[in-house]
Structure formats: C-alpha cells, structure tokens
C-alpha cells in the first residue's frame, strides 16, 4: 500500500465526516468520558472543536493530529497544540503511555488500517475513545436492501467513489475487533438520529439497529 498516493483530506471533507447534525452531541459524549486534567491526544482533530471543549471544560493538556493543512492552521491559530499528520502513518512516532486518552472521533472509518490505528491508540494512551457512524443502522440496511446501492444519508452524503470513509463498520463489527485484539470496553454509548442516547439496558442487536453513531471508551485488558 502506498501512503503517498492517498488523497489529502481537505477541511470541508473533515467537516462533512465529523459534523453531521448531531456532531455536537457526539463531541459532548466524548468529552463526558474524559476525566479532568487528563493528557489527551485527539487524532483527526479537524478544526479543534473537541480539543477546545476539553480544554475549556476539563482543563485537559490537549494535543491534536489533523491531516488537513487548513484544519491544522485553524487549530494553531486558536492556540491549540496541533500538528499536521496522518493517523495511519504518524502514531508510530509517539512513545508508549504518553497520554491518558487518545481520541479518534469520526475518523476510524477513514483510516487505511483501523486495527493498527486502534492498537497504536492503546499503546500511546491508557484509554482510547472511538466514535464512528454505525453502518448497521436500520436506514442504511434498508437503503442497501431496497435500492441496491451504496447507502447515502444526511450524515454520510458522499458517493462511494468520492468518500474518504473507506472502512465502514457496524457496532457489532467494532465490538468483534475489540474482542479480537484484547481491548476492554469500559463504556459504550449509541446515539440515535437526533443525537439522543439510546437506553443503556438494551441488547447489542438493538444498538446495532437503532444507533446511528457509537462512542466507545476502551482500555487495555489487564
């Protein structure tokens, strides 16, 4: 695989990936999982919205990596410590246990090797927080079933040939990956179309069907 040929994601795409109508809620759910005064790395931090929330509300020592140059420059101009980099290639440069939390918000599905990225996140950080759009949502299932085309939704509007999202997964798929690489799921939240949290005491298949987005708090298995 040649990383060099990978198209640069511009900020508009980063926004489109991150900022669905319930993006704000998604970020707040992520932020709620972070303990105050923690050291945080936000991978794919976009325009720095989450880092700003975390800095202001949780007093975290926040760092970011963002692939789009425009996003990085916006972040630095906001006074955030953000570097231009690629989750797929640059996490390897970070030493073990450098952060309390490594966050990957709405970016997992845009990485080349999600499994490797996830492994690096839990090497660099004690905990990882991952949020992603659930491809197992009933609307997406129905679209594929009845239209016979790659589904496009309000949150995921790009065509299959334009999208940066090359590795979609469902909540169930992600849970399987966590089990496979020995990751402990400390908390999970599924959000419905309006950004509301789904009830906690429902089975996984329900989440996988009705959760439009999922947020996982992960840690290394002891």
């Amino acid at each position, binding site marked *: 695989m040649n990383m060099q040929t990978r198209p640069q994601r511009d900020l508009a795409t980063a926004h489109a990936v991150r900022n669905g109508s319930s993006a704000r809620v998604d970020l707040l759910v992520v932020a709620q999982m972070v303990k105050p005064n923690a050291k945080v790395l936000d991978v794919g931090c976009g325009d720095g919205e989450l880092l700003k929330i975390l800095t202001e509300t949780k007093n975290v020592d926040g*760092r970011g990596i963002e692939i789009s140059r425009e996003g990085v*420059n916006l972040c630095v101009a906001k006074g955030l*410590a953000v570097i231009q980099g690629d989750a797929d290639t640059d996490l390897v440069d970070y030493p073990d246990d450098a952060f309390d939390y490594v966050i990957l918000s709405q970016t997992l599905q845009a990485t080349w090797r999600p499994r490797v990225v996830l492994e690096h996140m839990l090497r660099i950080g004690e905990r990882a927080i991952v949020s992603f759009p659930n491809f197992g949502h009933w609307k997406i299932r129905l679209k594929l079933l009845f239209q016979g085309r790659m589904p496009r939704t309000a949150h995921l509007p790009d065509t299959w040939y334009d999208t940066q999202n090359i590795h979609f997964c469902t909540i169930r798929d992600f849970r399987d990956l966590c089990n496979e690489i020995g990751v402990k799921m400390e908390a999970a939240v599924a959000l419905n179309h309006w950004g509301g949290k789904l009830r906690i005491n429902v089975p996984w298949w329900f989440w996988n069907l009705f959760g439009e987005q999922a947020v996982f708090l992960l840690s290394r298995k002891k």
Partner: protein
Amino acid sequence: MAEADLKSIQKARAKEAESPRESLVVRFGAEHPLKLDSGIALSPFQIAYKTYGQLNAHRSNAVLICHALTGDQHVASVHPVTGKNGWWETMVGPGKPIDTERYFVICSNVVAGCMGSSGPSSTDPATGKPYGLEFPVITIRDMVRAQAMLIDHLGIDTLFAVAGGSMGGMQVLQWAQSFPERVFSALPIACATRHSAQNIAFHEVGRQAVMADPEWRHGRYLVEGTNPHRGLAVARMGAHITYMSDAALHRKFGRRFQDRSNPTFSFDADFEVESYLRYQGSSFVERFDANSYLYLTRAMDYFDLAAEHDGVLANAFRNSPTRFCVVSFTSDWLFPTSESRAIVHALNAAGARVSFAEIVTDKGHDAFLLDEPELFAIIRGFLDGAARARGLVVPS
C-alpha cells in the same frame, strides 16, 4: 562600483563593527568571557542589540528574536546602513503578530556578525588590528550562549518566546535545548536540527567564492585596505537562489530581457533574473562583511542538535517544558518540510507540547520574511495561547 565608494563603505562598516549606530551595546570584560565550543574563551567581547516595547513588572513578556545568516538586530526599525525597513517589520511591531505593544522584543546581532557584536571585523585587543581569521570559529550554541549573557544582563530570567527563521530557527532550537527552563515558548521557522550535506555544499560554494577573490588576502583585507566584494557578491547571488523557489523565480522574472528586446550576444545581464542577482550581490556587500559570511555559514554547517545526544534527537528535548510552534513552507527546498517534521517527531517522542503547520506558498525559503497571512495568523494564535498560559493579558 567605484573604488572610492568601496573604500568608504569599508570604513563605515568597520565603524559599525565597533560602535554600531541605532543600537545598544553591552560589553563583557575579562571577568565574563564567552566560553566557546572550540575551547577558546573570547574576551573581551561585545553584543549589539535592539529592543522594542516595554518589559513588564514581572519581566515575563520578553521575546527574543534570532536573526538569520544575513540578518541583524534591526528587526523592526530602519537599518542604519541601508536605510531600509527592518527585516521582519511584517511580523514585529505595534499590532503585529509579535506585538511590541504587548511584548518586550529583543534582537541581538549574533557573535561573529558584523553589525556591532564581536566578530572578525572587530578590533583584536591583542594586536589593535581587525581580527580577520584570528577570530575564533563559533557555533550556533556559542551564539546562544552570548545571547543568554545578554538576557542575564537585562535581568530577564525566562523568555516568554524565542523566535526565528533559518539560522535564527537553529538558535531557537538550541535555546530550547540548552536552556529549557528559560524558554516558555519557541518558534523555530523554516529550519532544521542539522545542516544537510546539500546545505553544507551550498555554503562551501559561497565560501570558496569569497576566498577565491584575490582581494580577500587570506582574510586580511581590512588590514591591507582591499575589499573582496566580488567574491562576496557571488556568494550572495548563489545563496539567494537557494532562498527562492523555482516557481517564484519564474513568476518574478521568467525569461524576460532586462531593458532590451533582443539578446546582445554578450555576457551582459541580458536577462532580468541576472540583473536582479547582480543587484542582490552588490547591495549585500554594502552591508555585510566577507569574513563574517565565512564564520556564520560555518556555524550553521557545524550545527547538529542530535549529535550530542547519541544521534537521538528526542533526547535533546526530554522533559522539555517549552511550548513549540514549528512552521515550514511547501516550496522551501533549502530547509524542506521533512526537516521540520523530524523536529516535530522528536518533540512528540519527547512528550513536548508542539504545534506544527506547513504553509502553502511558492515563495521558497524566504517566505518566512514575506507577507504570508497564514503565517501571521498562526504565530499570533500560538503566542496568544502561550500568553494566556503565561498569565499575560490577551486583548479580546
């Protein structure tokens, strides 16, 4: 250039080396020698510097600007020799990104320079004549040591920021490595932690041009009353090409002829770009000393921050409390983005707080001196964030 002009330039410059105009000078006597990497103790020596703005009561708002190879202390005010504006007036001044209404800005001429800090054109107290090549070879770290003595002299413990591009950026990195507790934030721009073989090669061409000029006289031109201006001009012409990108040169000059519509079938400056380079060369010799050029290029060549840490750059910044903002430019082929990325990787590996931005421009290495709004926004934002963390008032 007329011989008489050159003589008067030479005289004016010699005077500038001893008692620089429009500058402050601090002289360090025998009790405060500058201990150099070469093992030599330089004494006595002097540092010429400029300041802008006011130091606050807590002495916490001082910003040190480190100048590049051919820069000097006149960062934001009219140059006493050329009459031109300061070399970083786009960046430093009232209301500018490095705002002199908020920060106390210091810029000193590097040791071995030729604008009032001790250098090869200064008088050697042992002989009463200009040092020439008797001046000890200095390093980037020696420059920083001398600056630290100046900062001590000014009664400043911690610098709010140290900023600079190119050779100035090397000094910024050296500051952060040598005095991490004294550097709250660091802005190394368009630079590297070491000179590459290509960098050294270009510098060697420049030095050879100077030394090939028969008027150089093994560095004794000030004593012998000659002036290696041709060699220095050629050195500058060559170097100037490396500061610009291919695209910028072509955009500026293309293949256009200079004041003529046809080639003259001679070796006149037929092309605009030739004329431009000749002008760059001849105006440079009016303000710069040939031996200083040798010393400063040498200092850059010797720079290798990782070398003293077993080649592991991250170890140079282990536990650094400094906030870094690294900036590079897409079309800079002298200090390409890959060099800045190496700095960022090392800082990340060391757990340092680092921001990094690459700015899209076709202006090449010199972009850091030019009107680059994105650069201004980044530096302003970074400094505002650092100022909040430092407890300095940030205007809303």
